[in-house]
């Protein structure tokens, strides 16, 4: 369990997330891609904390901040999907031609 191996795994998670966020048409699937990217970032932060900082707790703090970002992203994403669905009956990006409500 070396640091490069950990960083490669987190890079793979991030890459899959980039693919998902760019290719999916459904709003919730795009959110899943974003969360995979954040999970890769968190894994990289924890790996660097464990292997390269000598256990400085600020490394863990960075991961706590990333988790907050993930919670904010999920909550706002769900709220926006509900709002768009209520007005346009749309669940896919292609069905939103205009953003003006």
């Amino acid at each position: 369990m070396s640091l490069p191996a950990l960083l490669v795994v987190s890079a793979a998670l991030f890459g899959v997330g980039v693919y998902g966020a760019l290719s999916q048409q459904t709003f919730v699937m795009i959110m899943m891609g974003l969360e995979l990217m954040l999970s890769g970032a968190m894994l990289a932060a924890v790996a660097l904390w464990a292997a390269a900082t000598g256990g400085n707790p600020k490394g863990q703090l960075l991961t706590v901040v990333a988790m907050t970002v993930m919670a904010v992203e999920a909550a706002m994403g769900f709220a926006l999907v509900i709002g768009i669905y209520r007005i346009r009956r749309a669940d896919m990006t292609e069905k939103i031609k205009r953003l003006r409500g």
Partner: protein
Amino acid sequence: MSQGPLADVAFWVFGLAAVVAGWLVFRTDSMVRAAYWLFASFVAVGFIMVLLGARFLGLVLVLMMAGEMTIMAVFMVMFMMNPAGLNPMTMVHQHRTAIVAGVVAFAGLAGVGLVADFPDRPVAASAEPTAELGRELLGDSMLVFETAGVTLLATMIGAIALAAKRGRFGDATTGSAAPELDPAPPPEAEEGTGHDHHHGAGGGKEAGS
């Protein structure tokens, strides 16, 4: 950080599981299954964090994602077409660009991870990471912690405001375009009220000027 061959095997199993489950999120026809594949990926990442010594963070991640993925699965059933994946389907756009972007992102980040020279200072075996994190959160970094808390509060208020059915000035859909994909076109009455509302507002403005 746990050492030894057993920890290595566990890391490779969980690492592979995390990436493969993440990949299956976008390969499965069923959106509910996609939510649970994403949960599996997060569980694997959480276990790797536990292996690395960040026990608190790993388990908080699993706990948080268990709740979020349940909401996501319910959400899929409520809103999305074909949530159970009874018909095979692919719903993607700009597929080639997305694949290239994903591969480039992976290659770039993995290259940095393999080439860069990081300091070799592992966590001491005697360290207590959870206790240290607790002292940090309620000590030097309390401002960060509190800011995260206030941000989450603001998010809750914002999410409620965005998702509320009624706003301060009436129905949330007032003044919006008619739904494009409603199977039954809205009845005349609804159109009429929309126009009345519009004329009323315009008339008021003219009268005012």
